[in-house]
């Protein structure tokens, strides 16, 4: 693969993600609105559909402020780190089966290394650096508390998330995402069927991983004003928001690929990008639904829940999957 080829595909992916972000934002505000007896955006464009453009114009034209005591280099680098990491993690997510145009194979991911799953986890964990550093460099106490919480939360949840993902790896015996999808379709059984507990743990941890309500402790509007991004404005603030949403895309894609059969339709109903999109949309809807329903969990309880409930449960699940694969013959 030539460098230019990768570059073109990267740019296409970034554009795709930005568009998806913009319209997922509208979807979230609409869905939240309907949950809450209101309309959501309706003023800009038909049915509020031009809202993201208005938001983008607003964000870019806002003044870029920094607190007087802030560590300028880190303060300005943090949003870039967060966004870079979020985009980087998505690079290996395959969005569908490899397409063939007259003998020319086009895989639907920027890159597909042999152990793409490891790469996603490794890169995704780096995102917390941006959040912690951004909050720390802001020279604001609310931001500092937010970033401390973000790191504590990451430590508590990454482990359970990793264990849930490992259960999918054990189940399929593969470490690359297309391989895991292929394993599920080969055996005509989605990962979620034997691994329902693993999927539940993954779902909870993915909400925490994306800093979304009820695990949005790092922002915690009612307590920390806006948490780690209190001092950010304009486009730098937008970076954090975009990264949060792209992380949600990554997590929903992972959930769909690892546990829900990826781009394969149920009951052998063909394989296409649209199935994956549908599953991701359902997963993202779950994110919104949870957000509109639950109060924010308390910081120390969140860590207690992670360490005392999710991690042991993930270990038990891993043992069950190992038994399922090793003694019961797994899918074979």
């Amino acid at each position, binding site marked *: 693969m030539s460098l230019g080829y990768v570059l073109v595909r990267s740019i296409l992916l970034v554009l795709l993600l930005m568009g998806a972000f913009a319209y997922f934002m509208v979807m979230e505000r609409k869905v939240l609105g309907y*949950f*809450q007896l209101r309309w959501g955006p309706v003023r800009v464009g038909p049915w509020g559909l031009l809202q993201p453009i208005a938001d983008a114009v607003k964000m870019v034209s806002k003044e870029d402020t920094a607190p007087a005591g802030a560590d300028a280099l880190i303060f300005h680098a943090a949003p870039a780190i967060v966004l870079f990491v979020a985009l980087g993690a998505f690079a290996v997510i395959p969005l569908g089966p490899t397409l063939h145009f007259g003998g020319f194979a086009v895989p639907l991911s920027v890159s597909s290394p042999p152990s793409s799953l490891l790469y996603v986890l490794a890169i995704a964990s780096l995102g917390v650096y941006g959040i912690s550093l951004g909050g720390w460099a802001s020279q604001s106490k609310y931001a500092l*508390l937010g970033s401390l919480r973000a790191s504590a939360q990451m430590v508590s949840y990454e482990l359970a998330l990793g264990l849930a993902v490992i259960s999918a790896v054990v189940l399929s015996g593969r470490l690359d995402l297309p391989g895991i999808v292929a394993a599920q379709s080969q055996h005509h059984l989605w990962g979620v069927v034997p691994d329902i507990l693993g999927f539940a743990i993954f779902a909870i941890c993915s909400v925490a991983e994306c800093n979304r309500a009820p695990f949005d402790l790092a922002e915690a509007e009612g*307590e920390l004003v806006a948490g780690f991004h209190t001092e950010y404005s304009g486009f730098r603030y937008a970076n954090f928001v975009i990264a949060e949403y792209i992380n949600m895309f990554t997590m929903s894609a992972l959930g769909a690929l690892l546990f829900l059969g990826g781009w394969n339709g149920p009951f052998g109903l063909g394989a296409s990008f649209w199935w994956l999109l549908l599953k991701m949309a359902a997963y993202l809807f779950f994110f919104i639904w949870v957000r509109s329903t639950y*109060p924010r969990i308390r*910081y120390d309880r969140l860590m207690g829940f992670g360490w005392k409930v999710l991690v042991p449960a993930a270990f038990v699940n891993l043992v069950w999957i190992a038994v399922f694969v090793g003694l019961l013959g797994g899918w074979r």
Partner: protein
Amino acid sequence: MAAAETTTLNMGPQHPATHGVLRLVLELDGETVVRCVPEIGYLHTGIEKNVEHHTWQQAITDTDRMDYLSPIINNLGYCLAAERLLGIQVPERCEYIRVLMAELSRIASHLVFIGTYALDLGAMSVYFYAFQAREAILDMYEAVSGVRMNLSYLRVGGLQYDIPPQLQGMVDRFLEELPRWMHDFRSLLDDNPIFVGRTQGIGVLTPESCRAWGVTGPALRACGVAHDLRKAAPYSGYERFDFTVPTRSEGDAYARYRVRLDEIEQSARIVRQAMDGMPSGPWRSADRKVTLPPREELTTSMESLIHHFKLASQGFRVPPGQVYQAVESPRGELGFYIVSDGGTHPYRMRVRAPSYYNTQALKQLLEGELVADAVAAVGSLDMIMGEVDR
């Protein structure tokens, strides 16, 4: 290492969870509050002083603006105090209407509490549900007085207007819908493990500390003391109505939340009884020295014209004396201490604002808690800064 270092966190006066302009200076060890200094006064509007420059009737508009979530109950306390000084009785229908509107505004105030409290704890949908439920009450405010907030509907010696005929239907509809809203709140919050975990055992008050700080209202009843002025010292004919005083024994934030939910149901019972038993007859005092004469008399009666002119230009005079009248506001004992020197303006008014006394307990509530719990504890007292600072 030396002793643990602490951080001073300035929470407020502009902070999403301090409901207006309460400022808390928190000394934190990690996320634990070791010292809390509440600071008030950011919303001082000089209401008690303004009253001295308004006539007895005009002063009602000042009382609205203290506890703006239950304006009618403020009006009621003030009007009852002034009427005691004047020594006049209002007709029975007027008392019923006052109770009806006061209980509606108690429901509205508690609905705002539920919504904002849930929002503080991060449950955003409940906020919209509670405000949607409250909307019906604001519509009723508008129907009776033309205003949706700070309505100044009561008058010394009566009311601004009689209730309009369509109010009956509005009340019926609201009372029919209310149980469904209550079911929504209860199912979203009552047994929600996250909500219970955030509020249970947080900000515990004991009956002794309530007495020491002068804490009243739902916060007092949540520690098991069934003290409610509507029962303890009935006013405006509350003894005619059948209702209970909900209490709980835990004294924590969760108990305060549950007490308020139960109070909504009791208030709804009172509203039902007041609407059903609404007597006919005059809706304001017949004392022409205090209440305006009916419009049609002005063209036929010289005396009415004189009364109208005197009342509208300088107001009525109130015999010298002093009075303390307390009513049960959604936040506790709301007392009006008024001194009259026999003039057309109150000589001095001092308000015992329940939020002010409840706010004093904050220091004790917050020390030793986490920052996140501080938000849960502050919200559970449901203070209105307009009333604290007056």
